[in-house]
Structures are given as structure tokens and as C-alpha cells.
């Protein structure tokens, strides 16, 4: 029996962390992630979780200490947002190359500058090539579920990669919703006992971690890292299957919403998927064959699966909540369009950059996207690739 509760996204993730009982949490506060650290510190203070809490002096040290703890053989976690993730950057890459199964909730916030505290995806999109698994969440329920699943994925011996679980800052992190959590014992069973590989604290079997790795071996190690990411896709699906047995909630690499017979489709990540579903429902009532593909797993990128799911539609709009500044498109578009390349009579595909710095995205905005798509589908071509949605220009 699961438990129905009302929680914000931050509360839900802090609760997941308490239930997962990491050995070490090293974290630093940053809006909008702060509550996770605060709430979790409260759990430690009240003896509700037996975690060594390391209240570091920066995010750089948060990730550094988390790497040290994970290499030592502990289950180690941290959490961050935006500039905090940017300050971690160097060590984010090192964590992946050391193959440490760290789970890190990231509460999406616009990366400075100009400084802003609200949601966009520029923080995690910037880290897309860091070698971390990236899982996006639509709401607090998914943030909770994804956090629990991320641990099993990261620690799988075929994977051993760190994983970020993201949720949209404020929109999910600070909004309360009714959701289901598992009983503590069930989570305990779900995460199981952690058996680290070659931990630093095994002083009888000393290992050297993080050696200088030059041209004679570096490429093999990076190749292995790349292979782990390839392998992770099957593991993500298997973990989702197991999680469905436990909770009844089903997850995949992405969610297809009214997509099967859709003629026009939007690809979106995070909380905007919820808004878009409302619009799809309305359009369907009006007889428009609108569909939605909500990307859940951005790393590894499920290119083949996306192509298979979208190949039948006439026009696709990718919604990017960050910019690449490559003078072409946002990052998600680049990958989705690349996935569609080679599909016979591929659908027209366009990009909408939206919601930057927390700019509100309303059903009207998304309706406009579907209207544009109907137009593109009718004409069989688009006049332009990129549109900035809801901007004064």
C-alpha cells in the first residue's frame, strides 16, 4: 500500500532521499534547490536518517566531497541548481569518468547571466555531455519516482554512471500536489544493500583512483564510459519495469501522449508537458489529431525510439527551454532532428525556444505551436526552423 501525501517537489525529493538513506550527503544551498538541503538536514537532526551530512562551503566542494565519499565506498548524494551546477562542472565530468553511481537531484533554474532564479533548462542542458544520465520529471510524483529509480540505474554493474534527476524550479519544486510515496521498508528493499566496487576504504586491497591517464589509455577509458551510457538504456527500461510492479506507475524513455494516430506532435521535457497535455485534450475534442512526446530520459538519448514514435506524423515542434546560441536552434531540437534524419519522408520539424528565465508558458502559447504545426503539415514545409515563443522582439 502506498501512502497518499501532499508535497512540493522539493519535499518529495527530500523524502525520497530520507527513504534511500544515503551514507553521505554533501550539499550547498542554492535557490530553488535550498529546501531539499534544509529539509534533509532536518531529517538528520531529528535522527530520521543516519546520514553523514557534509555542509560544504561551495558546490565545487559539494561535488568534490560527494566524489570522495562515493569513491570511498559510500552511497553518496548531493543536489543543486543552475550556477551551483556550473560551479561543480569540472568535478561533474570527473564523477562520470570515475564511474561513481552518484544520484543528484537538479532543480532546474536559468544559468546566469543575467542572474535569475526561475526555471529554464540551461543548467542541465549545459551538462548534457558530462557523462551523466539525465532524467527529467513532469511533476513532484515523477521527481520522487525518478529519484528512486535513478539509484538502481546508476548502481547497476553494467552502468556505474552518475545520474541527475531534474525538476523544474518553482513550478515543480515549490508547488504542492497530491502524490503517492512508498513505505520506508519498501524503499529500503528497493535500494538494497550497496556493494561498491574497489572502494578506497578497503585498506587491505589498496587502489589508486584518479591517476594521470595519457594517450596510451585515456581513449579506451572514455570508450568504456561511452559504452556504459549505451548499456544504460536497457537498464533504465528494466528498472522502470520493476518499479511499475512495485508502484503501478509505468515509465519509459519517454511518454507518448495521444501520439499513435497523431498528425502533429510536440516534443517537450519537464513541467510544460502537463500544460501541453491540456492543450492536446482540447484539440482532440475539436478533432485535431494532436499528440505529444514527453522526453523523460535525455541521456542516454533515445534516438531510434524517438524516430520510431514520430515517423508517422506530418509535423513536429520541439520545445526547448534553453538556447544553444549556435545560431540555429536549442539543444533538444538538434538531437531530435538528428534522430529523424534518415527516416523516409521525414516529418517537417521546427523548434520553439520558450520559458527562458522562468517566462510563463500558457496553454495559449502551446495552442499557437499546434496551430503553426497544422499550417506546416498542410503545406508540407516550414518557413523557418526556430521561433522564440512568448518573447518581445
Amino acid at each position, binding site marked *: 500500500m502506498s501512502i497518499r501525501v501532499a508535497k512540493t517537489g522539493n519535499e518529495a525529493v527530500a523524502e525520497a532521499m530520507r527513504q534511500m538513506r544515503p551514507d*553521505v550527503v554533501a550539499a550547498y544551498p542554492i535557490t530553488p534547490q535550498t529546501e531539499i538541503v534544509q529539509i534533509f538536514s532536518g531529517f538528520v537532526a531529528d535522527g530520521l536518517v*543516519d546520514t553523514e551530512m557534509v555542509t560544504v*562551503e561551495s558546490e*565545487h*566542494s559539494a561535488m568534490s566531497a560527494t566524489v570522495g565519499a562515493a569513491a*570511498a565506498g559510500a552511497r553518496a548524494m548531493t543536489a543543486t541548481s543552475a550556477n551551483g551546477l556550473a560551479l561543480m562542472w569540472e*568535478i561533474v565530468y570527473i564523477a562520470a569518468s570515475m564511474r561513481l553511481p552518484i544520484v543528484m537531484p537538479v532543480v532546474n533554474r536559468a544559468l546566469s547571466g543575467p542572474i535569475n532564479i526561475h526555471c529554464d533548462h540551461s543548467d542541465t542542458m549545459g551538462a548534457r555531455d558530462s557523462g551523466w544520465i539525465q532524467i527529467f520529471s513532469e511533476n513532484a510524483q515523477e521527481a520522487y519516482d525518478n529519484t528512486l529509480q535513478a539509484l538502481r540505474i546508476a548502481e547497476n554493474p553494467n552502468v556505474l554512471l552518475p545520474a541527475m534527476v531534474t525538476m523544474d524550479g518553482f513550478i515543480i519544486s515549490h508547488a504542492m500536489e497530491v502524490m503517492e510515496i512508498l513505505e520506508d521498508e519498501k524503499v529500503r528493499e528497493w535500494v538494497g544493500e550497496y556493494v561498491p566496487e574497489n572502494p578506497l*576504504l578497503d585498506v587491505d586491497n589498496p587502489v589508486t583512483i584518479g591517476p*594521470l591517464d595519457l594517450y596510451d589509455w585515456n581513449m579506451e577509458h572514455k570508450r568504456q564510459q561511452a559504452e556504459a551510457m549505451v548499456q544504460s538504456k536497457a537498464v533504465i527500461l528494466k528498472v522502470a519495469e520493476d518499479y511499475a510492479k512495485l508502484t503501478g506507475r509505468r515509465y519509459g524513455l519517454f511518454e507518448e501522449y495521444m501520439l499513435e494516430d497523431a498528425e502533429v506532435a510536440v516534443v517537450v521535457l519537464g513541467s510544460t508537458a502537463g500544460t501541453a497535455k491540456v492543450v492536446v485534450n482540447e484539440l482532440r475534442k475539436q478533432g485535431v489529431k494532436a499528440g505529444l512526446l514527453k522526453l523523460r530520459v535525455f541521456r542516454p538519448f533515445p534516438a531510434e525510439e524517438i524516430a520510431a514514435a514520430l515517423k508517422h506524423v506530418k509535423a513536429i515542434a520541439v520545445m526547448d527551454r534553453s538556447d544553444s546560441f549556435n545560431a540555429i536552434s536549442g539543444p533538444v531540437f538538434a538531437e531530435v532532428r538528428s534522430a529523424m534524419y534518415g527516416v523516409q519522408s521525414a516529418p517537417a520539424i521546427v523548434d520553439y525556444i520558450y520559458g527562458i528565465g522562468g517566462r510563463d508558458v500558457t496553454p495559449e502559447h502551446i495552442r499557437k505551436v499546434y496551430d503553426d504545426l497544422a499550417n506546416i503539415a498542410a503545406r508540407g514545409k516550414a518557413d523557418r526552423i526556430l521561433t522564440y515563443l512568448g518573447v518581445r522582439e
Partner: protein
Amino acid sequence: MATLKELSTREFNISSGHRACAGCAFPMIIKQALMAADNPVVVGCATGCMEVCTTIYPYTAWKVPFIHNAFENSAATVSGVEAAYQSLRRKGKIDKKIDFIAFGGDGGTYDIGFQSLSGAMERGHDMLYICYDNQAYMNTGIQRSSATPRGANTTTSPAGKESFGKKQYRKDLTEVMVAHGIPFVAQASPAMWSDLMSKVNRALAVEGPAFMNVIQPCVLGWKYDSSQSVALAKLAVDTCYWPLYEVVEGKYKLSYKPKEKVPVREFLQKQDRFRHLFTPKNEHIIDEIQAEIDRKWEALLAKCGE
């Protein structure tokens, strides 16, 4: 600390065959520090000469568990290792007593890793941080750091027609660490091995953070004959350029008082990084350096009640 006889039976926990320069003093520091430990030790190290020379994959010179993460985070990384240890020990998954040592050069300690060090010390992790202070960014080719002494010629504070080398005096990091109020702070020199080892031994026995600043002559950066490293490490002490002292629970204690304070000129003369000071134009800098050493030495004697 163990007796000399006992020490002679202890294994070196760093192997031969590492790739440090001939005459480099940091392998001596590693040997002395690890040999002084009574418990198993886990070592962390900042990016720099020590890491580069001892861990070229697939080889390692370390016979104890070793982690290198990045340049500026040796202290934060080892604080994470130590936190894992505390957690796993509390949960009964580890029963051994283990000691933790983080190494960093002066660049990784005084400069880019300073915040990480300060944070780890403030948080009170049970670890010893040892700075091997060779007084410049030696691994990247002798660039000035905040540990570089006034007058030294480095590639980014070069002596030239309009320059006598580095203008600024060194940052006194040892005193900065004393100001952290941690239980154990000391300066040491590998030339005075017994003192260094006794300090490491006691620093590891302390519950909580300890910091040691150890001078490390660098053949390439200081520019001297590779046979002279120990002699220079000793001369640094005898000139009171690098006083040996400790501050345990806030109480200063002088570890060694030279019978006769040797003029700093003799220390400087033996290193080509100071060669340009021995010219009529720059000679006054030597006097200023001497005056600064005298001032600091007197202040230290007063703190130590000498």
C-alpha cells in the same frame, strides 16, 4: 611515536620507480609522513607534481589507497572520504581505525584550493592536510604562487631590467590555519625528519583537523644542484626563513632554535632563482628580506614564550 628500531621495520608505502625529478624532496615527505602513521592511511592528493609523478596509469607508486580528484579540491575530496568512513563505521560496516591525509602543493593549497582547505578545516573532519610547499607552480613550469617568496624569479614574476622578481612577500598560510582554531598546526622540513614524523604522528592522533606546512626544495624551480635538496631544506630552517614550530590547541611551541641564526643571504645564494638579487641594483632587496625574516622570527619567539 614508534622508536627508530620499530620505524626501521616499517615498509615504505611509496615505491621506487616513481617519476619525480632526481633530488626532488616530496618523495621524502611522503615517505616520512606515511611511515609516521600508526594506523592504515588513505591518501588524497591535489593535481600537481606529486600526483603526476606517482600515478601514471597503469602504474601507481602508492601502496596505500590513493585518490586524486582535481587541482583545487584535495581537502574537499578527503573530507568526503572521511565522511564516508564516519558513516560506514557508525553503521558497523568498517571496524578498523583509519587515518586520512590530504596532500597538496602550494598552488593547490595557498591559492586555488584555499577555500576547499578552509572549509574542510572549519567543518572539523578528522584528517591531516599536508602542504608540500615548493613555493611556486612547479608542475606547470615555475609560475609564481602566493607562497613564492619576495625576490624569486619565476616565469610569471620574471626578473628583468625593471623587475627584481616577485614583488610580494609570501602569504603566511600556517598562521592563517592557526587562525582557524583547529587543534593542530605545524611547520616542518624533510631535513629534520624526526621532527616531521613526530608532528605527523601527533597530528594523526588528534581528533579533528590538522594542518602541516612542509617546505619542499625543488631542483628545477629553485635551480640548484640535485644533491642539495636536504641541505637547502635544513638551511631554510637555520636561517629562520622556515621556522619549525607547532600550535597545538592554540598553544605555540618552537620545535627548533638554531644555535646561530644563519643570514638569509646564504640560503638565497645557493639558489639561482635569487641570482639576480646579488647585483648592486637589487642588493637592498636581500636586506629587506632579512629584515622581514627577523621581524617574523622575533614575533614567533614571542608567541612561543622564548
